[in-house]
């Protein structure tokens, strides 16, 4: 708590110093949109939509759209609060130095106010559009990402993205909760897929960007446990992820096409993780990690897109009735 009050005081001091020079915001509309991390938002919308579609029951299209919009804005709000808190380390990392706050286009206090306003607004809209359980779940997710992950875990432990990854994995469960008012095993399986996908995805990036994270003082796994230990853990999580990707088939909401896609791409993930494990030196090691990072994005997209397409086209489940 002392850490948060220190940061708020620092933001206040910067605002006071800034007010003596500039009394109008310097950010463009694009800068404010950038604060919401649109690419993360699009992934959240996509996975939450799949959570809504696989949920048993019917939702009014207008209320469904409003719920999805609220979930997206909630995700954007947590991204905004993340950027407010992490502005100091964003400034020293090449990947993030051009973000609106470290680049000086938006003041920290503006980002904080923007993030809090959108957080409250998104939770209220989700509560009004669907139900208050889903709204509470969204509020918890924002809290988990902005406070538990960003303010605490990220700078404290190499397990930061493992535990923090839960925040990115919650949206399908929120989507399901928006339709049914509760969470079932189906939503939990989608959560598990994203949760197990997060470590191989981010650690593949961290292997390549280890220097950046070291400069910023972020204890990512390659900086703390070393690249080889990270490679072993990537392999371990990928071996758990591949069968988890097939769980929707066993539970009856993934059909034959999904089974094929999840099976083939799951083997692709294992093959690329194996390559990362074996190639440990030089350009080959960097390339292997980059390939795993890129393919992991395609993997998750294909899994959720196939689930969505199967539901939309009404293809029968391979094992309909199993586990239900």
């Amino acid at each position, binding site marked *: 708590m002392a850490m948060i009050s220190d940061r708020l005081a620092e933001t206040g001091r910067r605002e006071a110093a800034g007010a003596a020079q500039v*009394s109008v915001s*310097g950010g463009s*509309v694009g800068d*404010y949109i950038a604060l919401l991390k649109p690419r993360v938002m699009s992934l959240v919308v996509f996975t939450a939509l799949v959570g809504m579609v696989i949920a048993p029951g019917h939702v009014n299209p*207008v209320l469904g759209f409003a719920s999805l*919009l609220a979930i997206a804005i909630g995700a954007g709000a947590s991204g905004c609060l993340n950027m407010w808190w992490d502005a100091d380390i964003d400034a020293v990392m090449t990947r993030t130095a051009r973000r609106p706050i470290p680049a000086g286009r938006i003041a920290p206090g503006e980002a904080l106010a923007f993030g809090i306003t959108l957080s409250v607004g998104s939770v209220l809209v989700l509560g009004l*559009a669907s139900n208050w359980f889903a709204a509470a779940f969204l509020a918890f997710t924002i809290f988990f990402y902005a406070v538990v992950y960003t303010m605490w875990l990220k700078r404290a432990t190499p397990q930061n993205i493992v535990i923090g990854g839960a925040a990115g994995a919650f949206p399908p469960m929120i989507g399901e909760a928006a339709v049914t008012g509760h969470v079932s095993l189906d939503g939990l399986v989608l959560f598990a897929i994203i949760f197990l996908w997060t470590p191989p995805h981010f650690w593949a990036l961290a292997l390549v960007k280890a220097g950046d994270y070291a400069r910023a003082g972020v204890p990512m796994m390659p900086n703390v446990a070393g690249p080889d230990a990270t490679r072993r853990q990537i392999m371990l999580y990928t071996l758990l992820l591949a069968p988890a990707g097939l769980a929707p088939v066993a539970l009856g909401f993934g059909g034959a096409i999904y089974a094929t896609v999840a099976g083939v791409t799951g083997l692709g993930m294992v093959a690329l993780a194996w390559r990362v494990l074996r190639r440990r030196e030089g350009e080959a090691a960097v390339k292997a990690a980059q390939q795993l990072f890129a393919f992991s994005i395609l993997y998750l997209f294909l899994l959720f897109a196939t689930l969505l397409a199967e539901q939309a086209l009404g293809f029968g489940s391979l094992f309909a009735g199993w586990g239900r």
Partner: protein
Amino acid sequence: MRDKDRTDDKERAVEGGPPRMSPDEARRRRGRNIAIAVVLGLLVILFYAMTIARLGENVMNRPM
């Protein structure tokens, strides 16, 4: 920024008025203002549509 502009800004700050904006700053502020207006308009439509959707068929069910 020219010296005269700096002096003007200081005078405005002392008087409590806003500082002079560059054309780029003015353009960005106009963009923000338009975005806020559009968002507010869309929120009005969203809340109206949500209300009608929530009411459903009952919206036509008025006791005579």
